[in-house]
């Protein structure tokens, strides 16, 4: 017995924090770090927007109609003389929360469907995956328009519409991740110890699939911002009087010849935000992929 213990005197490697390791690797990716910085800045600005905007975003100033960028109005004014910068900042709140909310809902539904489909297989899998195939066969934005056309316009409905087209991609990703993890020996071990299906699914399989989900989640936020803006632009989303990125684009396009800055700045902001989310997603994928050092 004594020598048995002695023989097993292996020294444990010092526990390395996975989070520290992750941060170290992530910081090496400059574009992703810059993107993350931009997103954080935007989120903070959106949260604090009512307190930091230079002008009331809804206040019309008829002395300053369609003014170009100047020292007093950085990004110019719109057809009612409202400050474009202030409106965009306040609009970030709406746009970001619509995108985030819809992606969270879509992810949750897609994850559950994908997990169950992958784990139980059989008719459930066939049903879920064929359903996803049907949703996949429509272009995202067309699907969203169809959903809004059915349930009517409005911010909440835009959230639902964007969530609907987010579901299938997550269901697919989660299903394949589940299939991979399900085959692992440790799942069989869990079963050999008497674990229930539910427990195996949520305690043993789900954590193993999160990694593949995170990247898609980030990327999807970018898509959702774009989709929400498109819907607003088409008049399905927020009320046109509200400071929403898409709605501002929609209103501003009437003055494209005389005051291009009204569409230019919302357009640039949408573009940069979506780009930032996508680059962040790329960075996360590279960081989380153990094959890339």
């Amino acid at each position, binding site marked *: 017995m004594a020598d048995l213990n002695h023989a097993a005197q292996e020294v444990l490697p010092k*526990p390395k924090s996975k989070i520290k390791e992750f941060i170290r690797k992530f910081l090496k990716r400059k574009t992703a770090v810059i993107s993350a910085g931009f997103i954080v800045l935007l989120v903070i600005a959106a949260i604090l927007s009512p307190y930091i905007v230079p002008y009331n975003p809804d206040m019309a100033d008829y002395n300053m109609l369609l003014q170009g960028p100047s020292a007093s109005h950085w990004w110019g004014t719109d057809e009612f003389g409202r400050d474009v910068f202030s409106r965009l900042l306040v609009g970030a709140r709406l746009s970001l929360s619509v995108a985030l909310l819809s992606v969270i809902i879509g992810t949750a539904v897609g994850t559950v469907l994908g997990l169950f489909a992958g784990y139980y297989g059989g008719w459930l899998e066939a049903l879920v995956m064929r359903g996803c195939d049907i949703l996949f066969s429509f272009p995202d934005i067309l699907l969203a328009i169809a959903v809004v056309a059915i349930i009517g316009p409005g911010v909440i409905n835009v959230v639902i519409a964007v969530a609907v087209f987010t579901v299938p991609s997550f269901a697919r990703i989660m299903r394949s991740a589940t299939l991979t993890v399900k085959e692992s020996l440790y799942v069989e071990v869990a*079963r*050999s*110890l*008497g*674990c229930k299906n539910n427990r195996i699914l949520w305690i043993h399989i789900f954590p193993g699939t999160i990694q593949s989900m995170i990247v898609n989640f980030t990327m999807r936020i970018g898509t959702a911002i774009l989709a929400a803006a498109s819907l607003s632009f088409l008049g399905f989303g927020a009320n046109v009087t509200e400071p929403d990125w898409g709605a501002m684009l929609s209103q501003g396009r009437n003055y494209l010849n005389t005051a291009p800055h009204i569409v230019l700045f919302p357009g640039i902001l949408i573009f940069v935000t979506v780009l930032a989310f996508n680059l962040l997603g790329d960075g996360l994928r590279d960081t989380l992929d153990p094959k890339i050092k």
Partner: protein
Amino acid sequence: MAEKLLEIKNLTTEFKQDKGTVTAVHNVSFDINKGEILGLVGESGCGKSVTSLSIMRLLIDTPGKITGGEVILDGKNINDVPEREMRQIRGKKMAMIFQEPMTSLNPCMRIDKQIMEAILLHNNITKKEAYERAFQVLKSVGIPDPKNTLQSFPHQLSGGMSQRVMIAMAMSCEPELLIADEPTTALDVTIQAQILELMVKIKNENNMGILMITHDLGVVARMCSRVVVMYAGRVMEEASVEELFANPLHPYTKGLVASVPKLGSNVSSLPSIPGSVPDLSVMPKGCKFAPRCGYAMDICHEEEPELKLVKEGERRKCRCHLLNLNKEEEGNL
């Protein structure tokens, strides 16, 4: 007389495939007494692992299905109990350790959680008590620093340590039967010896039965009291370990025993059994080993021999036509 712990009668497991069903385990019968280590040996693909999974009824994720026979644990046929009851048996009455310790542990969970999981599933105790017990079992499997080990993630442990943790997990609810599916194959020799030693020690302490699945005859010689030799899903021979090595009856067993190098013998090349295990979907008609057998007779290709007691009153069985021949010769003399 030792008490019978597990009895397997005519266990048959089939796998459904596109082309039809394939019988991976065919009419397998053997039994294990309390406090006994039974070795189950055979080449890769001969149905050893499927047998063990069938006993645990863990074929859910595979196209396999148990189509016949009984698995009697402690006098109760567990082959037809509902899944809910089966979950109570798994882990509590019989536990399993697997071939690859490094992938047997969930990489996302700390060791303490994993060991406590099994304990909490089968015992009505508090988390604190479960932690205490996890600590104790880790200590009992010879882990030098149980406290730190409990806090670590599987990737921080070596193969030997992981296998110890696996054994601790399997032992945490004091099962009566431990199925070890090639527990030392993935480990290097010194660690192998330690793990085997540990298993014997635990067996002696708890008087449990161990089904040791392996293709390593060295492990068999060291650990087991009796051996079942499987080939192509069938039991070919059953014997005590001494008899098996001293006087193997079946040509296949002879081949296996001969292929193990012996200390002091000076041969340039080891004998091997020609050919490979037949494809389970295209089995030869007669004796499944006949195409590779050096002693094959006409009858061997025509008719499959039965598994017979070699001598009345002995627990020694063999499935070979040669046996009948020998008996007849004895009768003639």
